[in-house]
């Protein structure tokens, strides 16, 4: 194939895209063309270490001896000309020599990336503050820095027909169970989609049950958390373009744990976990219980409380269920608006939300102050478990509807159904409500009441792993 034919082939593959560049070198010793996309490669490296040696070469250069001429650290792989457009689209440079049948791949990708910073969704008082970024190689390195072992294995895949998104699967050989790793890789390979934009796309393909509104895949923006999960036998999935690293297998209790629990006193960690559970229960049950008590079982409330409540709700034009539904809906709308609103306008939203909508509506007698109080408590509680915000929010509405119709009976039936549903879930062999259902006593050390790290001599039984021994027991 000639250079002209190669250029035509690549140009037609890219439909004469304007950001496709060709750099032809035509000296006595070198007749080649370099093809790359603008902005995808490191221009300085390209000019100094690739083009410059080729131009100044004093002997004939071809694909066979290219690596002897240019300054490039990796093995230069030959690429069939049909595959060259795909490689160029990924940001690589293809060097094609006149008369040869294949191109040569040089990967000097350089995309602009943000600096490593503390993730906004998982701040800690004490402990590492590094967070993942959108660049996959940096993310792998952040984990490797914490796990300096050759057993940490990385398998690279490419997912998405058009996006060809690089995906890395990380696990510690000898700890993670092989069949779990194989199943995850198998599921990733089976993904048939045009593009993967974020790791959540991948999560929806590898989760156990499709129409479940609970997280079935763990995610973290912190390398220390992912490293500790890898040490427990889990598998991490890093997707290029996403700062959220996925971890599997996943159990619900992971969302009630926090990295800070392990860097602080065990007693305070246990207390924090207890309050997280209480917060999530308040979030889900409180609005429903308020409506049930007010509509169906007001006789169960203490007399003084009932009198106060009656005086506060007297004159409200709506039944308790409709009122609560209205306040919750208002909160959800304000919440969505505050997330998407530009920061500078956030203050005005707070004023509008708190004063205009809340205070004025109460003063106008449209909603009662206890309903606002209950919604506020429920709204605060939801952020005790930030990874399950979506599920808790949906459940809050379901509980509200059930309690409006059937009172406490409806709530209890829903609790039983919800528990039954959750215990029936599993993630790659890990029961979703482990270590509580089934009760796995050794894992309770890292349960609601957290034991000292010194006592956790074994890896969790809830998570399938090959090697249970975490540390040698010191009997002294």
């Amino acid at each position, binding site marked *: 194939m000639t250079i002209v034919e190669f250029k035509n082939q690549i140009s037609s593959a890219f439909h004469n895209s304007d950001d496709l560049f060709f750099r032809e070198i035509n000296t006595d010793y070198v007749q080649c063309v370099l093809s790359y996309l603008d902005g995808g490669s490191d221009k300085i490296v390209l000019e100094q270490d690739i083009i410059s040696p080729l131009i100044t070469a004093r002997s004939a250069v071809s694909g066979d001896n290219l690596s002897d001429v240019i300054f490039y650290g990796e093995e230069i792989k030959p690429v069939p000309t049909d595959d060259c457009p795909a490689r160029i689209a990924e940001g690589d440079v293809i060097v094609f020599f006149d008369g040869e049948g294949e191109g040569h791949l040089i990967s000097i990708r350089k995309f602009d990336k943000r600096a490593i910073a503390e993730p906004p969704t998982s701040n800690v008082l004490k402990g590492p503050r590094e967070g993942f970024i959108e660049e996959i190689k940096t993310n792998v390195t952040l984990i490797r820095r914490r796990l300096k072992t050759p057993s940490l294995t990385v398998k690279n895949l490419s997912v998405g027909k058009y996006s060809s998104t690089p995906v890395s699967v990380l696990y510690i050989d000898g700890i993670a169970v092989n069949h779990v790793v194989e199943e995850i890789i198998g599921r990733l390979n089976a993904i048939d989609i045009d593009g993967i934009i974020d790791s959540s796309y991948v999560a929806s393909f590898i989760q156990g049950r499709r129409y479940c509104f609970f997280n079935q895949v763990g995610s973290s923006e912190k390398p220390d958390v992912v490293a500790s999960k890898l040490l427990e036998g889990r598998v991490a999935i890093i997707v290029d373009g996403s700062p959220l690293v996925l971890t599997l297998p996943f159990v619900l209790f992971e969302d009630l744990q926090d990295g800070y629990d392990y860097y602080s006193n065990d007693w305070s960690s246990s207390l924090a976990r207890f309050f997280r559970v209480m917060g999530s229960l308040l979030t889900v049950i409180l609005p429903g219980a308020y409506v049930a008590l007010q509509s169906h079982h007001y006789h169960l*409330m203490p007399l003084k409380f009932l009198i106060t409540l009656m005086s506060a709700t007297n004159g409200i034009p709506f039944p308790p269920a409709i009122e609560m539904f209205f306040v919750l809906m208002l909160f959800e709308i304000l919440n969505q608006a505050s997330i998407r609103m530009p920061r500078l306008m956030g203050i005005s939203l707070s004023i509008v939300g708190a004063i205009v909508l809340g205070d004025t509506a109460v003063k106008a007698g449209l909603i009662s102050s206890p309903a606002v109080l209950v919604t506020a408590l429920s709204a605060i509680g939801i952020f005790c478990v930030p990874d399950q915000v979506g599920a808790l929010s949906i459940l809050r509405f379901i509980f509200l509807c059930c309690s409006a119709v059937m009172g406490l009976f409806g709530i209890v*039936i829903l609790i039983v159904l919800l528990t039954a549903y959750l215990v029936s879930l599993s993630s790659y062999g890990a029961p979703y409500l482990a270590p509580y259902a089934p009760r796995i006593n050794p894992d309770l050390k890292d349960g609601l009441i957290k034991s000292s790290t010194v006592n956790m001599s074994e890896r969790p039984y809830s998570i399938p792993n090959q090697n249970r021994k975490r540390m040698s027991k010191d009997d002294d």
Partner: protein
Amino acid sequence: MRLNYNLCHKPKTTNLYSSQIGAVVFLCTLSYKLSSLPGIVSEYLSSSTLWFYLVLSVVDIVEFALLYFFFCDGSDERLRDKIPYKIGVAILFVFLSFKCIGFFALAVLFFTVELYVGISPIIIVSILIVPMLYLGLKGVNTLARTAEILAPIVLVIIVLNLVFLDCHLDFKRNLPVLALPLKDFALHSIKYGLWLGNFFPLLFVKVQKKKFPYVFTSVSITHIITIVAVMVGVAMYGDAMKILGNLLVEISGFNQLSTEIGRMEWTALFAVIVMGVIEISFLFFGLTECSVRLTRSKYPAIIVVAVVVVLLSSLLSSPQVLADLAHTAVVGGIMLGLSLALPIYFLVVKAVYRKKDKNSSLNEALTEDRL
């Protein structure tokens, strides 16, 4: 993970941890024994109610022990194709069907008469049927794990309600031991056979033992709580106990914390509803397993449930008719007889076939030696 929603499949035995069996036993023993039964029994047996409960507990423990031997010894894996075993399972299917209908009727009665006065039974039936079907069809693994989560909460509620009880108790009301002549006491006691045989669905599971004796602990705690609760109930109400619709709820009404944080009946209501749902789901699971063993399909069990729904919601003016039928002397006597006879029958069938298997393997070995 793919889920199998097929209603037709081969019979299988599920492994349960002993802690899970303990949780199921706890919830299923207490549920109906401490809710509607004390009131019903007290009407006829008066001060002998406590002593009736002692006898009931002994019978219950004996029956559980017989079943325990059965499921600890490899469940029914080698018996499934044997005709005598299938006959036993067919009888068990009828037994569990009636128990399921009876308990369902009692649950509907509680909600329509005690909790939501005047509500149409069809609403209660259609709500109760959902968790029952879901848990029953999902299988005993889901059911046992659910029980494992909820049992400690229920235990704490019951214990706290007993500990914080603030009421005048006259324990002399439990005397005389025999308010009726012994013969009448025995004849009346026979009526309550419906409340026995809660653990038959355990015939279809295998136990994975843990170090801690969960099953023994659970059985002990359960029966101690039952006896204490009934003793307290009689001491509180005496002969007036016959008007109680639900003993646990009434006990929780006299909680010291009631004046501070509101009436504590809601805690007992939570416990009662949870236990009731788990119990009927467990019985329904037993029904489905019986029908799978007999017909390789869960449809017969579902038909029974459909009949329950129709009976309770349309054909009968009140579920009271079914509940009353459940504790007549004939029905109660049959249920009592079956709840004791069936475990012995299953153990005998197992022993006979084990002996036959041993003999045949011995004969085979001898024949091989001769050859």
